[in-house]
């Protein structure tokens, strides 16, 4: 009969209409500003810089190696390396970014900076309500606006942050063990050479020389093997 198909379709619509009153499955929309769907755990919007401890400037993990600046596809990261050094989380002196700007009006949320960063210093935020009426300054974030504490990172990406923390702790333990071994070796050497008057200064410098190659191996070890983190 002509009109059969239309009636069949209408029955389907009616089923959905009345169904939406009884079945939550059929009611898929929410009233956005009042009601919110929680974001997925590894949702990504724009990058932020992680710092340890309470002081964002002292605890910043970024060492201004500029890898992310080079790899960012639309080139929206701008970094100026510092001239002096500050200690990083294992206490080794490192450069830090004197300027670290991300132009989030250009950023395409691709997460490549996060993937290539060997120091777990840059991560993706889930905050998406960033509208502003200042399209230039308001969308160019400097390093202060970009920095977020490690606790915040744990709050938004718990699984990933726990993995990162475990990896960093392991590395720190390794470095400390090595430093301890080196110090012991240096002390033994110093004790052996205690008869000579110039020995303490010599032992000191050899201890320093021993930590330098370790520092180099640390940077190697932190690079993810396959790059996929």
């Amino acid at each position: 009969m002509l009109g059969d198909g239309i009636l069949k379709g209408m029955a389907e619509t009616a089923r959905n209409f009345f169904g939406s009153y009884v079945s939550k499955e059929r009611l898929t929309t929410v009233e956005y500003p009042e009601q919110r769907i929680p974001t997925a755990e590894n949702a990504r919007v724009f990058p932020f810089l992680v710092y340890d401890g309470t002081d964002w400037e002292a605890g910043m993990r970024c060492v201004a190696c500029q890898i992310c600046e080079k790899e960012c596809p639309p080139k929206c990261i701008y970094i100026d390396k510092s001239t002096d050094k500050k200690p990083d989380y294992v206490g080794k002196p490192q450069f830090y970014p004197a300027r670290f700007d991300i132009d989030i009006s250009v950023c395409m949320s691709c997460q490549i900076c996060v993937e290539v960063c060997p120091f777990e210093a840059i991560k993706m935020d889930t905050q998406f309500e960033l509208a502003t009426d200042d399209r230039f300054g308001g969308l160019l974030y400097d390093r202060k606006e970009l920095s977020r504490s490690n606790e915040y990172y744990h709050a938004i990406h718990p699984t990933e942050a726990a993995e990162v923390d475990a990896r960093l702790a392991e590395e720190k333990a390794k470095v400390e063990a090595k430093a301890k071994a080196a110090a012991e070796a240096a002390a033994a050497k110093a004790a052996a050479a205690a008869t000579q008057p110039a020995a303490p200064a010599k032992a000191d410098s050899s201890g320093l020389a021993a930590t330098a190659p370790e520092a180099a191996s640390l940077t190697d070890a932190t690079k993810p093997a396959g790059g996929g983190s």
Partner: protein
Amino acid sequence: MSVAEDKAERVEGWNRPPVIEPEGEGELLEVAMGPHHPSTHGVFRMDVALDGERVVRLKPVFGYLHRNHEKIAEGASYLASMPYTDRLDYFCSLTNNWAYALAVEKLVGQAVPERAEYIRVILAELTRVQNHASSIGFLIQEMGASGTPLMYAFKEREKILDLFESLTGSRMMCNYMRFGGCRVDVSGPWLDATRKVVAGLPAFVDEFEALLSTNEILMARCQGMGILPPELAVNAGVSGPMLRAAGVNYDIRKVDRYGIYDRFQFRVPLGDHGDIYDRYMVRILEMRESIKILEQALPTIPTGPIMDAKAKIRGFRPKPGEAYGRIEAPKGELGFYLISDGGPNPYRYRVRPPSLINLTILEDMCLGHNVADVVLIFGSVDIVLGEVDR
């Protein structure tokens, strides 16, 4: 030179509609449909010459959304082009990723672990389901059924996009595949959620079909409309559901057997008439076949690594050479052609977009039809302007 010809030469310049002086009585009406026409899915213009309601000439004008994708890719590292491929056909970013990853893997001879291949198939078939569902939704929208079927499609698409988001971090710009594998591993809960969604898909397709397939208005407007003869389709290089609706049995999943498609049982639905209704039906049936592939792939997914141990992400410099990687994207054959000169960026990077090539035969399908049907025929091609203009 006749007066008419002379006039045509004077007026027809760059980007101007052709001036046609009809034989006999009356004048042709020239209409520029687009670039901001609600039916054009973006910025696309059709310069139509109408004799009354009938289309006598149609000139597609491309390029409003040109973003220099290929040239940017030639100046960027291989990895940096991966997120840009998401922006080609933004409905199916995962299949775009796959096509590009496949081309680079061919270029360097990179193997892909088993588990990653399974993940790729699962994601590609989910992409196909959501693309076909929404493309049908848009087609019906263009017929004037404002909203209802589209919202039904989007309801299902939403579930699939939620899966994409929880895996890749983004709903549409997934940037998920890497040369030699995938970026993050799928977790047990994610696979369970996927199984649940896939279990609900057949019911959705049934519902969609009950809503539409036998609808008399849809049949009256689609059957015998916008016929694409198989010879023309083959000669114009048309691919995907458009080609199969014309009755040509060509599915790259079957022809190339890239990835691990030779392990799954599925059929290739073919049309008989090459009209809009056949395209609609082929898409419905392809959704059913995709669900079949998903049902086979999900229980058999092996454990193991998701990245090949030899895969490199940074400092990637392929040896000089060239490669063409292609896949059966939801819209047709999506290929990437790469030439490497040994440097960190490709020397040549070329995309073979299905949307653009499927659109080239628009005039042939529209001639002689009413202007209201042009919108419908255009909608049945299933294009995304991000891919047409790149």
